[in-house]
């Protein structure tokens, strides 16, 4: 069993593209802004603008298309399910309908001025014009959220994310939120993922050599068989944490308030440029959403 090869942590893909070189703080803010923005828009054709924008960004990252798709694959089923259920569960003008037991009707361009057909009216399945539109809209929204976050994690290393969050949450210190300690915990957690995986592999091998069975068809049995793996893993993790705490103390951790930062986050022209692009883009989108298409 090899666990290491199956896990891509944070899916960070190192590189030196425009997006990689951006300030992680700006990347965090921009991806957050994109996600919020796509909840403000309620027309699919408006939503397609940030989607196309993200595709362009994906080209800018110089990460291969396949690699990005690998990250998206896991959420594709959810997107399809969302699309499917919105198609059949939205009231409107039916494109396709099936009424029990054997009545079919199909019309590609239904008369949109005719009265709305409610979904739960009879024992039937209807795919409505509005349903497809709304399903497409929801799918696009999900896709944008996933794409924005995965482009962010693909181009920003976990440590950079930690630094960015620590810096952005600086104000938290005023209301006594231990921002630095939380960031430290996060970075230690990231640092110990490979170590814990190594421990896990060792324990699994040790248990296998004593005749433990992990390849069980029944899910309950399979879950049970992992108990003798998880318990030593937890004990090990606590022991490691204890030793680490002593080692950190020996190196003067916590003795002074002002720690020096080795990694510096620099704001460059890239950040201002991408910020301006985003602001202009959002201004135009919101103008259409709230003024031009108001009430439609």
């Amino acid at each position, binding site marked *: 069993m090899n666990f290491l090869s199956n896990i891509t942590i944070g899916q960070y893909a190192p590189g030196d593209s425009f997006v990689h070189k951006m300030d992680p703080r700006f990347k965090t803010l921009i991806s957050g802004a994109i996600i919020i923005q796509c909840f403000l828009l309620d027309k699919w054709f408006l939503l397609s603008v940030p989607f196309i924008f993200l595709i362009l960004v994906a080209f800018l990252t110089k990460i291969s298309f396949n690699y990005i798709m690998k990250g998206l694959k896991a959420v594709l089923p959810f997107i399809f399910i969302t699309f499917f259920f919105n198609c059949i569960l939205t009231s409107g003008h039916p494109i396709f309908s099936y009424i029990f037991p054997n009545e079919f009707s199909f019309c590609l361009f239904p008369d949109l001025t005719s009265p709305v057909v409610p979904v739960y009216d009879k024992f039937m399945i209807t795919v409505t014009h509005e349903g497809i539109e709304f399903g497409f809209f929801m799918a696009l929204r999900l896709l944008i959220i996933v794409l924005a976050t995965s482009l962010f994690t693909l181009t920003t290393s976990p440590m950079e994310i930690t630094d960015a969050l620590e810096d952005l949450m600086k104000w938290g210190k005023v209301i006594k939120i231990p921002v630095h300690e939380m960031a430290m915990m996060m970075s230690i957690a990231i640092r110990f993922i490979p170590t814990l995986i190594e421990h896990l592999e060792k324990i699994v091998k040790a248990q296998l050599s004593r005749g433990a069975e992990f390849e069980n068809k029944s899910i309950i049995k399979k879950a049970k068989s992992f108990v003798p793996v998880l318990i030593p893993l937890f004990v090990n993790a606590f022991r490691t944490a204890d030793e680490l705490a002593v080692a950190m103390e020996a*190196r003067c951790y916590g003795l002074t308030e002002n720690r020096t930062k080795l990694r510096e986050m620099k704001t460059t022209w890239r950040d201002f440029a991408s910020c301006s692009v985003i602001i202009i883009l959002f201004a135009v989108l919101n103008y259409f959403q709230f003024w031009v298409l108001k009430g439609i």
Partner: protein
Amino acid sequence: MIEVKNVSYFYNHKTDDEIKAVSDVSFKIEEGEFVVILGHNGSGKSTLSRMLNALIFPHEGNILVDGFDTSDESKIYDVRTNVGMVFQNPDSQIVCSTVEEELAFGPSNLGIPRDEILKRIDFALKLTDLEDYRFTSPSRLSGGQKQKVAVASVLTMKPKYIILDEPTSMLDPYGREKILDTLRTLNKEEKISIILVTQLMREAFEADRVLVMNKGNLVFDGKPQKLFSNRDKLKKYSLDVPTMGIIFDRLKKSGVKLSEISMTSESLASEIIRLYQKKCRK
């Protein structure tokens, strides 16, 4: 100078099942010395080493590091910056995700300026021969390399003394040799005092001076050669008698006139060759 004065330490102090881990130990370690603290499991050597770094405090007696008392809370900063500590398990003492950041961890805790930290990192990487691994994740390194990173990350704090608590016990012989090499360089070239805590007799050969702990007591303090020749004593303290010692003893018993106690196989071999050539010339 580290002065240990009549130090005792108890586990479960002032309870019914009190265990004396270190009892009434006194010694001094000068700057630039290479000292090995040798002892069997449970001899109190680890406890002693932790007291030198103010991680735990002696219950009786006191320890002075360059005149700073380790029991004095306000002096902990001075004690810990002067005395670096490397632990047994390489995996559980590395805090950061890259070697460079790991080396910066200590000095950034002290609030040292960034430029100075970068200089120290260059210096420490060069000394430990890890320059190629600056941006590598520690999880990709071998055990020996990880332990070297641990040594280097203590070096960036510019300590006068480095205590190593069984640093080689989880390493293969190759990794062990590499660590000992590094320690030798640090001691010879940088004049840093090394205090190596170990169970392994052969690591004691490196030292200028050996302290042997047995059941919490300091039972020997002197040159390794002196300890080395006394096989009965070694057995009494549950320490392994080195192979070279046995060979040396047997040669001496069978009448070979070896001049001094040889510590390594190389020096014993060259000694024998010297004697043989002498004999041939005659």
